[in-house]
C-alpha cells in the first residue's frame, strides 16, 4: 500500500485543478496532455520497462478508437461497453503483433520496423474499407449524457482521463514491484542472461506487449469519446506513434511517472511555440523531433534520469562518504 502513496498524491493534486481553473482552453490542453500521457504509459511498459521500442503504437490507439466508434455508430452498442471492447481489441492486436514479432525473434531495429509496418498497413486499410468509413472516417453522434460516455462539462472529461491515467499509473507500479516486472526489466537489460535464470523471455515480452497495447488503446477510445471523430490519419497516423514514444523518452523511460512528466513538458513546449509563432502545421512535430534528438544527446534517461543524476552529483559534492552510502540506500 505504501508504494501507491506517490501516485495518490499526484492524482489528488491533479484532481484539484478544475476547482481553480475555469478556462475551457486550459482544460482542453490538460485533457489532451493526459490522453497523450496515457498513450505514453502504454508505450512505457513495453519500451521503457521491457526495452522493446515500438515505432507503431498507433496500431493500438487506432484500433481502440475505431472499435468503440464502430460499435457505437454501426451496432448501437453502449459507449462504455464500446470502450471496454476497444481496450480488449487493442490487447488482441498487441497479442497478434507481439506474438508474430517475438516468435520470429525480432529485436531492436527489426522490431521497430515491423511495428511501423503493421501500423501503416492498418492505416491504409482503414482509409479504404467501408466499415471504418474509408477516407471520410467515423462521426460519433453527439449525446451529452454520462451513459453515453459524453459530458456537458469539460471538467468531467478531465476527471475521466485522470482516472484512466491513475489506473495506468497503478498498473505500472504493480508491475514494477512484481516478479513479472523484475523479469521484464531483466529481459530489457540482457535477454540471454535472463533466459539463463529461468525467464521465459517470449512470454514476458508478449505479456508486456498486451498490457502496453491495452493501455494505449484506452487512450484511443478516450480520443473517440472526446473528439467524437476518428479517421485513418488520426487513429493510425504517425503522430500518435511519435507522441506515445516521445513522452516516456523525455520524461524518463522505465519510470512510472515518466510519461506524465514527459507529456506535460512536451505539450507545454508545443503550446508555447504555437503561441509565439502561430499555429502552422508541422510546427509541433518539428519541435518534438528536435527535442527527441536533444534529449537523446544530452539526457538519454529523460527528465527522471537527469534528476537522478543531479541528485547523485550533489550527493558526491556535498555529502560525507557515510552519508553518501546512506543516501544510496534510499
Amino acid at each position, binding site marked *: 500500500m505504501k508504494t501507491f502513496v506517490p501516485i495518490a498524491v499526484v492524482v489528488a493534486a491533479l484532481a484539484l485543478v478544475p476547482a481553480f481553473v475555469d478556462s475551457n482552453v486550459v482544460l482542453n490542453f490538460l485533457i489532451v496532455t493526459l490522453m497523450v500521457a496515457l498513450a505514453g504509459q502504454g508505450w512505457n511498459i513495453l519500451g521503457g520497462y521491457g526495452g522493446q521500442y515500438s515505432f507503431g503504437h498507433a496500431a493500438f490507439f487506432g484500433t481502440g478508437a475505431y472499435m468503440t466508434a464502430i460499435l457505437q455508430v454501426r451496432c448501437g452498442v453502449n459507449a462504455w461497453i464500446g470502450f471496454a471492447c476497444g481496450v480488449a481489441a487493442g490487447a488482441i492486436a498487441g497479442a497478434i503483433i507481439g506474438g508474430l514479432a517475438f516468435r520470429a525473434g525480432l529485436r531492436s531495429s527489426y522490431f521497430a520496423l515491423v511495428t511501423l509496418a503493421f501500423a501503416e498497413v492498418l492505416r491504409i486499410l482503414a482509409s479504404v474499407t467501408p466499415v471504418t468509413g474509408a477516407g471520410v472516417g467515423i462521426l460519433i453522434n453527439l449525446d451529452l449524457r454520462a451513459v453515453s460516455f459524453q459530458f456537458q462539462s469539460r471538467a468531467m472529461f478531465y476527471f475521466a482521463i485522470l482516472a484512466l491515467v491513475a489506473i495506468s499509473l497503478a498498473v505500472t507500479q504493480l508491475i514494477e*514491484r*512484481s*516478479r513479472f516486472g*523484475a*523479469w521484464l*526489466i*531483466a529481459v530489457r*537489460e*540482457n535477454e*540471454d*542472461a*535472463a*533466459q*539463463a*535464470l*529461468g*525467464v*521465459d*523471455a517470449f512470454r514476458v515480452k508478449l505479456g508486456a506487449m498486451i498490457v502496453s497495447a491495452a493501455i494505449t488503446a484506452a487512450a484511443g477510445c478516450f480520443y473517440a469519446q472526446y473528439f467524437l471523430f476518428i479517421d485513418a490519419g488520426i487513429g493510425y497516423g504517425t503522430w500518435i506513434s511519435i507522441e506515445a514514444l516521445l513522452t516516456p523518452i523525455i520524461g524518463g523511460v522505465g519510470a512510472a511517472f515518466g510519461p506524465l512528466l514527459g507529456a506535460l513538458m512536451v505539450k507545454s513546449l508545443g503550446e508555447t511555440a504555437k503561441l509565439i509563432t502561430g499555429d502552422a502545421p508541422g510546427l509541433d512535430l518539428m519541435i518534438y523531433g528536435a527535442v527527441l534528438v536533444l534529449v537523446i544527446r544530452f539526457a538519454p534517461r529523460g527528465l527522471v534520469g537527469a534528476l537522478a543524476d543531479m541528485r547523485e552529483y550533489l550527493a558526491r559534492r556535498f555529502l560525507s562518504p557515510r552519508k553518501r552510502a546512506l543516501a*544510496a*540506500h534510499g
Partner: protein
Amino acid sequence: MAEPLLAVENVSCRFGGLLAVDAATLSAPAARITALIGPNGAGKTTLFSMISGFLKPTTGRVLFDGENVTGEPPHRLARRGVARTFQVVQPFARLTVRDNILVGAHLRHRARAAALAMAEQVGRDVGLGEMLDRPAHTMTIAGRKRLELARALATEPKLLLLDEVLAGLNPSEIRDVIPTIRALSTRGIAVIMIEHVMQAVMSLAEHVFVLAEGRIIAEGSPARVVADPAVVAAYLGHGAADKVRSAHAH
C-alpha cells in the same frame, strides 16, 4: 553406482561446415565437482551452451536428472535446475547487485519479499554483502564474477555450469573464490567448471574431462589426466604438466 545427474551422450554441434563438438560424451555426478579443460577453441563453451539449452545439438542427447532434455530452451532448463555463468560476464548493468540476484531468486519465489530475502542471503554467502546496493556496472571484474555466481545460485540449481569463472582474477582473488566453489558441493550442488587455471582444477575437481578440437580425448582423476601424454601434447605442454604435477604432489 548411482545415475549421474547429468549425462551427455555422443553430442555433436555443427555450424555449417564446422564441426564444433564431435560426439562428446561426459557425465557429472550430483554434488560433485567436475572439470572440463582443453585448449581455446576446443568447443568447451559450445558444449556448455548445448547443456544449458542455448544451442541445440545436431546429434546426440542430453539427460538431466533422468530425463531427456535435449534441445529444451534455456529457461526450461533453468527451471529444471541447470544454471550457468557466462565466459564474458553478463550482468544486468544498470541494476544494483541486489536486484541482479533478485532476478535469479524470483525463479523459485514469486513474492518479492521472499525473493529479496533469498537474494540478500545468497549475496552474503558469496561475499557480496557489503555491495548489495551498488550498481552492477561499478563492480570490479572479481565482483562481477561473484555476482554472476550469486545470480546463478539464487535459482537454487542442482547443476551449476561455471564457464572460466576464474579468468581475469589475480592470484589472491582466485584464492578467495576457491573455498566458495568448494562449498557448493557441500551444499549438494553439482558443478562442472571450464577452467584454464590448473591449480584450481587440481584442488577442486574430482573428475576431469579433456576436450580438444571438439573431441573428448581423456578423462579421469586430475592426477591421471595431467599425466596423460595425449593431454600433455594437445593442451598442457610438458613444462606446465611437470609444474602442475609437482605442485599437486605436495
